[in-house]
């Protein structure tokens, strides 16, 4: 007992001394390897974040050299009076929710298909991944042609089925956001790869045992596949939510940069961009909106971390 009580501090002391020695000797390497990244982080992330916060407390416009401090006025105005801000947040949330759900389901389905052992799988994987590497601007422009209500290929095909009122797609304020959600759901490439990697990490034996036990394919999916890839589902949920909430380029192309038609594609990033860089160039106000939106994204991410406790299985059970 005496040895134990006297030995414990000794071991701790030794460990601390080892750590201090190695820290000192490795310090320069630590600085060398992380310094550039840290410098980049401070210059291009930390400084803009702080600067945006300071800006959000001013009435600065793009051309104004001497802005005044307005405190929380911009925040209060955005939260209580700006209807377009509320609309853009609402539409961004709807877009993120539905497009995220579509992307998750599609990417999981595609990953499961690609996990099968068939011929030409490499080619299939490339084809399915292709939409992801095409820039959103190009995707938007192509879909605008395909979905043109009168001259587009999609409605021409639908017309063959004698459908009465053909959809107006991105032309109508009713359907423009839905159209954008549909288009964005084809951007599943990266998430599909994450799922594919997770699926390939599941040992074959689990399925073989389940089959011997008489488990159906559905039962295997819910009892083996889903639990084992749940950490990747959580990872993808976080990614698609943030992607959806920050979506800009597709909305910019589909909505001509200003939420056309009738503000129906006015997502928050577009509205923030318009506020800061179009007349009346309200940089301070746009910065406040950005901070509110950041807090919303943070809250959603936090909520998903909470939810993950109920469906993510980790190694500890």
């Amino acid at each position, binding site marked *: 007992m005496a040895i134990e009580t006297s030995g414990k501090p000794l071991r701790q002391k030794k460990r601390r001394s080892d750590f201090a020695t190695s820290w000192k000797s490795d310090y320069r390497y630590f600085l060398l390897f992380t310094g550039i990244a840290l410098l980049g982080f401070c210059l291009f992330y930390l400084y803009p974040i702080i600067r945006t916060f300071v800006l959000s407390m001013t009435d600065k416009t793009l051309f*104004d050299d001497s802005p005044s401090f307005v405190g929380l006025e911009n925040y209060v105005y955005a939260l209580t009076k700006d209807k377009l801000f509320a609309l853009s947040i609402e539409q961004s949330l709807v877009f993120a929710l539905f497009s995220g759900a579509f992307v998750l389901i599609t990417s999981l389905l595609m990953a499961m298909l690609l996990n099968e052992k068939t011929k030409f799988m490499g080619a299939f994987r490339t084809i399915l991944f292709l939409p992801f590497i095409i820039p959103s601007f190009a995707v938007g422009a192509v879909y605008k042609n395909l979905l*043109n209500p009168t001259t587009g290929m999609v409605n021409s095909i639908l017309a063959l089925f004698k459908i009465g009122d053909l959809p107006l797609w991105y032309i*109508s304020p009713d359907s423009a956001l839905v159209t954008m959600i549909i288009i964005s759901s084809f951007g599943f490439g990266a998430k599909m790869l994450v799922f594919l990697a997770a699926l390939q990490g599941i040992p074959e034996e689990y399925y073989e045992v389940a089959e011997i036990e008489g488990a159906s394919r559905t039962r295997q999916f819910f009892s083996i596949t889903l639990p084992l890839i749940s950490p990747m589902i959580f990872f993808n949920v976080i990614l698609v939510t943030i992607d959806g909430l920050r979506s800009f380029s597709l909305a910019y192309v589909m909505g001509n940069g*200003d*939420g056309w038609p*009738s503000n129906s594609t006015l997502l928050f990033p577009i509205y923030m961009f318009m506020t800061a860089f179009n*007349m009346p160039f309200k940089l301070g106000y746009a910065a406040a909106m950005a901070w509110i939106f950041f807090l919303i994204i943070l809250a959603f991410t936090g909520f998903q971390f909470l939810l993950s406790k109920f469906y993510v299985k980790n190694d500890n059970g």
Partner: protein
Amino acid sequence: MKRKYLFSVAFLGVALLSLAGCSKSDSGVLKIALDIEDEGRYDGLFASFKEKTGVTVEATYGLDPSKLIGTSEEPDIFKTSTVSIISMKDNFVSLDELIAADPSFSLSDYLDPIIAALTVDGHVYALPTSLNTSLLYYNRKLFDASATEIRSALGLSATDSVYPQADWTYDDFQKAGVALSRCTGTGDNRVYTQFGADNQLTWWGEWLVYINQMGGSFYEPNTNNRVLAITSDAAVAATTFWRNKAMGDATQKFAPNAVELASGFSFVNGNTAMILGGHLGDWYSYDLLGLDWDMQILPTPVGLPNAKGGELSADAFGISKRSKIASTAFQFLEYWTGDTGALEMYKYGKIGALKSMQTLIQNDADVTSTQNMGAVFQAIDKAVALPQEEYFSYVMESMVMTELYKLMLTGRSAETDVPAALTTIKNNVDEYYQGIYGN
């Protein structure tokens, strides 16, 4: 030690000299930010300015000036306009002192409404380079091809011109437009292949013209441009005319609705015969696309031959607050917006905002036009400057045209009741202004 000290001083001296070379205080170079389509257009003008003053003008093309602010590339001269000057004025020096110091310069050489529009709180912040006013543009080829139908619709004789005339009313405009439209099928199954006129759904340049011409206005008078007047009888009549033009029955419709617009019907595409409003800056594109076009003054509402004209606005340039060579910059602005610059810009379809512009064009043998230039100056005389209000452009684009768009569609969320749509817009915008300025 002494040598080391000397080296340090020499090094510092060289460094300071180099830094001085990088600064904007080089009075021999004047930087200007221009639009991408202006590339190379004014090289001759820059050369003659250099000959005159020894100052080199360096232009950047297509770069967003707002992104150059505060950088070493920041231009001395920036583009603005009569619409955006109120939002951008903080970026510019007031020209008052520079104007007062130059006895050869007179503000009264420019069109008064344009100078008034570039004056904020009693200070002039920019000089106008080219202006815009609303006109009725038409495609001669399409008119010739429909000559018989137009004659029949307007009751013209075989010797009368089928082209738009200065005394046209909205009724004539509509009848000719319907005669120029082509479609297959009947009733609801009509599929148009050509329209009599274009339709401006995302810009106010057509709708607001109808309102002003019918005797209405966008803002209520004496409200400091903060309360809308668009529920007036005149505004309702104007909006109804505008809507029927695209959504009316076969006897009224002569312009594309929202869906047809997305299918590529437009004046520049050569499948619509007229455009009311338009923009002087588009002339160059019309020529480039090989359109056989001409213009006429705007038609007037029936019974209102003395109706107001269309919109009057101008592109303008101001001098950056941070410019170290403001007086040189002013010298260039004076040169550019004066007679020489105006004639140079006219080659590219830009009309200077000088009172003497018409005479200048007539007296210059180098500049000829096959278009009806007289109509431009008649239109300018009758035109009305846009309201000077910081949020006008934002309100129009984000709150007015967005709602009006719904009048140009059929379907679930489409709006068919013009007064209801205008009331919705008025309520939204009035509330917006109250939120900004209070009651």
